[in-house]
């Protein structure tokens, strides 16, 4: 068992960049939310890596808080997604560009 800690750190970097790529590219709000989840998860991997490097429980504690944040964020994101779908009948993020009531 000898994984040098830069290897999982590089993996976290790669996953974060994939999430960022998805966030920049996709217009569908489902994919935007999923990309944010990918990036949060990569941050969690980096915390675990740091916890492994120093043999410290703080890495896993921060992972619990990352999950906490992801859950709260996703619940709100999904509710807003459903409301947007009901109002504009599309999931296009670019369609929601009028910050006022259309009525």
């Amino acid at each position, binding site marked *: 068992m000898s994984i040098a800690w830069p290897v999982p750190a590089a993996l976290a970097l790669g996953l974060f960049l994939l999430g960022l790529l998805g966030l920049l590219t996709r217009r569908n709000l489902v994919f935007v939310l999923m990309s944010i989840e990918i990036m949060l998860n990569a941050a969690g991997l980096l915390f675990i890596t740091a*916890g492994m490097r120093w*043999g410290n429980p703080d890495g896993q504690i921060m992972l619990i808080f990352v999950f906490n944040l992801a859950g709260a964020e996703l619940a709100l994101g999904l509710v807003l997604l459903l409301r947007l779908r009901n109002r504009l009948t599309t999931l296009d993020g670019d369609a929601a560009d009028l910050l006022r009531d259309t009525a």
Partner: protein
Amino acid sequence: MNAVFYAAAALALLTTALAITRSNPVHALLYFVLSLLFMAVIFFTLGAPFGAALEVIVYAGAIMVLFLFVTMMLALDKLSLRRERDWIAKPIWMVPIILVVLLAAELARPLLSLHAGLQAAFHIVTPQAVGIKLFTGDLAAVELASMLLLAGLVAAFHLGRRQ
């Protein structure tokens, strides 16, 4: 154990790449759930068994299943799938890929410049150690987390009401 780590890392990267390039959201989410399971394997090989269990139970089991159910409730038809395919046509990927590659080059430089003498002793952090630290030293953070969840609950209830 090393082979398990590298296999899981490669598969996690592959399934994540597949997840962000699918046109069908349900397929993409299932690939992402798969990537989370590989991530749990990675956590386990890095000596964080409690983190691995949480990744499967909380993240893949609860959060992503909620996401999946809501996506299925959206009832996407053929038209929206075709429109999605137009949105991710090739030229759209050019500028984001250039930006992400630039960022990767800048962030990977400090990682590559580290010399190879950094193999720390391998520690397994037990769930017991995590629990003791979480509920003694970090109690204030637990309270803040519960407030965040309460705020999320109230906001989701308020926004989700029928008008």
